[in-house]
C-alpha cells in the first residue's frame, strides 16, 4: 500500500496560483499597503524598520542595471511563492507550516514556536518574524480584519494568498452549490493593482484566466533551479 495520505493534493480540484505581469507592474506599491490593510500586518516604527524588522508580507524589489543615462529598472513584486515542494515546510519541527490540499503553503500561527528555520530555508526571504509585540494605538485597532488573527510576538508569518478571501469565496460557492467561478476569489493585492498586473485563480481549471496566462511564452518561475514548483508565475516584461 503506497504511503498516500488522505490529503493528497493531486485529486483536489482547486490549486490556487497567481500570475504577475512584470510588463504591466509599475512598482507603485499599492498592493503592499492593501496587503497590510487586509491581513492586520503591523507597522514597526523607524528604529525597528532600520533594523530590518518591517513586517510587510509583499514588497516591491527594484533592481537596477547599467548607469546614467541608459539605466534599466526592473520591479519585482516579491511574495511567498506558495511552492509545491516548499523547502520551509519539512524543516519546521512542530508542523507549524504545511501544504494544504489546495496547494497553499499554510502557516499555523499558534503552533509556531519561533525556531525560524523556515525563514532560513526560504531562498526568496519572504517569511517575516514578529520580533516584538505589535501594538495598535487607541482607535486604530478598530480597523483590524476580524477574519484573520493578530499574531503574537515570536511567531513567523507570510503571505497566505488571502486565505480568508478564499474561505469566503468557497463558502459562497458552497451555499449556492456550485464550483468557485474564475475571478470570484481575488486577493487584496490583485484587487487593488491599478494596472491589473496581478491575476489570481485556480490553475487546475483549464478555462481560468490564470491557466491561460500560465501558458504564455513569457512565463517565468523564480529560482526554478531549486525545483520548488513555485505557484507565482511571473510574465517577463518587454517584447
Amino acid at each position: 500500500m503506497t504511503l498516500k495520505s488522505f490529503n493528497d493534493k493531486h485529486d483536489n480540484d482547486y490549486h490556487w496560483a497567481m500570475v504577475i505581469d512584470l510588463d504591466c507592474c509599475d512598482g507603485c506599491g499599492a498592493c503592499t499597503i492593501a496587503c497590510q490593510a487586509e491581513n492586520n500586518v503591523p507597522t514597526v516604527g523607524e528604529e525597528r524598520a532600520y533594523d530590518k524588522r518591517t513586517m510587510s508580507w509583499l514588497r516591491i524589489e527594484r533592481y537596477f542595471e547599467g548607469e546614467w543615462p541608459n539605466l534599466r529598472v526592473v520591479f519585482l513584486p516579491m511574495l511567498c511563492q506558495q511552492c509545491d515542494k516548499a523547502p520551509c515546510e519539512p524543516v519546521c519541527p512542530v508542523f507549524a507550516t504545511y501544504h494544504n490540499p489546495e496547494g497553499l503553503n499554510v502557516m499555523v500561527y499558534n503552533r509556531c514556536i519561533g525556531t525560524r528555520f523556515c525563514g532560513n530555508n526560504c531562498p526568496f526571504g519572504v517569511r517575516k518574524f514578529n520580533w516584538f509585540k505589535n501594538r495598535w494605538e487607541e482607535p486604530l485597532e478598530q480597523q483590524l480584519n476580524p477574519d484573520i488573527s493578530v499574531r503574537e510576538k515570536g511567531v513567523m508569518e507570510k503571505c497566505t494568498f488571502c486565505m480568508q478571501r478564499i474561505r469566503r469565496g468557497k463558502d459562497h460557492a458552497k451555499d449556492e452549490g456550485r464550483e468557485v467561478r474564475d475571478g470570484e476569489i481575488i486577493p487584496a493585492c490583485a484587487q487593488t493593482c491599478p494596472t491589473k498586473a496581478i491575476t489570481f485563480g485556480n490553475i487546475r481549471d483549464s478555462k481560468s484566466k490564470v491557466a491561460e496566462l500560465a501558458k504564455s511564452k513569457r512565463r517565468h518561475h523564480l529560482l526554478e533551479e531549486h525545483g520548488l514548483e513555485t505557484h507565482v508565475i511571473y510574465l517577463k516584461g518587454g517584447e
Partner: protein
Amino acid sequence: MSSREDIPADERLPAVETVRGQALDAGIQAGKESDFSISEDRLNDISLRPMFYTTKTYYVLTIILALIVAWGAACWGYQIVMGMGVTDLRHPVFWGLYISAFVFWVGVSHSGTMVSSILRLSKANWRRPILRGAEAMTVFSLLVAGLFPVIHVGRLWRIYYMFPLPNQRELWVNFRSPLAWDMAAIFVYLTSAFIFLFVGLLPDIALARDYCPAKNWRKGYLKFLALGWRGSHRQWIVYEKVSLYLAIFILMIAPSVHTIVSWDFAMSITPNWHTSIFGPYFVVGAIYSGIAGVITLMVTLRWIFNLDEIIRVTHLTNLSKVLLLMSIMWGYFYFTEFITSWYGNNPTETAIWRWQTDRFGPMLFTMLGINIFSIAALAFDSVRKSPGKLFVIGILVNVAMFIERYLIVVPVLTHRDNPFTWTDYIPSFVESSIAVAAMAWFLLLYALFVKILPIVTVSDIREGNALSCDMAFGNRHIRVHGDAEE
C-alpha cells in the same frame, strides 16, 4: 570501618607539599624514580585534595562566575519579556550568535567522550589521569549547548511542542525536521555521556566515601551515590565489561550527534550550507576544538590544584600530538569545502565567499591564521612539552573555532539568494552577554563538580600502578605497563 581519624574535623587537610614541575621532571630524567612511584596514601591525598581542600581564591572565582551567570540570566529574561528583537537578528538573518555558540559547545563536548572512549578501547596507558576531566567537560558543555536552542527560540513558553508528548489534539512533532533530530540526538548524547561519567565515577565515589571524614557534609551524598560499591572482585568484572560496552556505544553516538547538528545546515537549500562535506567537517572540527578544550582544562586543573604528579607533562604532550593531527584534518576538510565552491563558480556562493572575505575578512584571517599557527607551533617539541604554551594554543584554537562556526552561520544569511534583502549583522549587547554568561556557566558547573565529586580517576591510576613495574634494560631502568588480557 577505620577512616583517617587524624584529619581535623573542619576538613582542613594539612597542606600536602607537592613536588612542583621541575623537581619532578629532574627525577624522571635521572631514571631513579619511576613514573608512578607515588605511595598509595600520597596518591589519595593529592587526588582528593581538590575536592576537600577549598582555598579562598576558589570562593572568589565561583562568586565572580555566578555573578556573570546571573547577568546572563537577567539578559535572557529581558529578551523573553521584550521579544527576540533585542538581539540584532533581523530579516533575513534569522540565526546568529546563539546558533554558532550552540554548535561550538556541542563541538567542545565531543572530544570528552571521544578521547576517553578511544583511549580506553586502545588501552593507551597515558589515558588514565585525564579521563574524568574530559568526560566531565562533555557533560557540562552539552548542558550549556542544550541551553542555546532554548534561548534562541522565539516563543519559549511553547517549547514543549518540540517534545512528542501525547496530547488531546493529537499534534505530534515533525520528525522529518533536522531540529527534531537535533533534540533527539542531544537528549540521547546527554544521557549516555552522563551515564558514562557516572559509571566511571562509581569506584572513586566509594573511595571518596571512605576517605571523607565522618562529619564532612559530603559524607551523606557520597555514601548514597556510591550505591554500596564494595570493590569486590565480582563487581570489578562486571564493571570492566560495562565500561567496555559504554565506551563502544558512546563512540557510535558522539559523531552522530555532531553530524546531526551539521545537518541543521546541510539539510537546508541555503547556498553555502547545502554541501555534503558538512557532516565529517563538523565532527572533525568538534574533536579539534574539543581536544584543545581538554588540554586547556587539564593545564588549568594541574595549575590550580597542584596535580603535577597526576597529570604529567607526558600526558599533555600526547594530547597535543592528537591536537596536531586534528588540526591538520580540520584544515583538510576546510580546504575541501572552500575549493569545491570556489571551483564550481555558482554565482550565489562566490558572492558569499567574496562577502565573507571583505566584510568578515578580519575574522576569517584571524581564524585561518590561528589554525595554521597552531599546526606550526605544535610541530616543535619544546612547545608540546610546556603546559604554558599548550594552554595558550588551546585557548587560541577554541577562539578560532568559535569564529569559524560564526563564519559558517552569519555571512551566508546576510548575503543570501535574494540580493535585495542583503544586510549586515553585529551581535547585540544582550546576545554577547548571554554567550559570555554561557562560558561562565560552563566554568561554574565545572568548578562545582570539582568540589562535589573527585576529578582525578584514582582507581584507574591505582590500577595502572599495580600493573606496572620497573625493568632493568641494559644500563637503564624502564617502566613497563602490564596488560591483563593476553
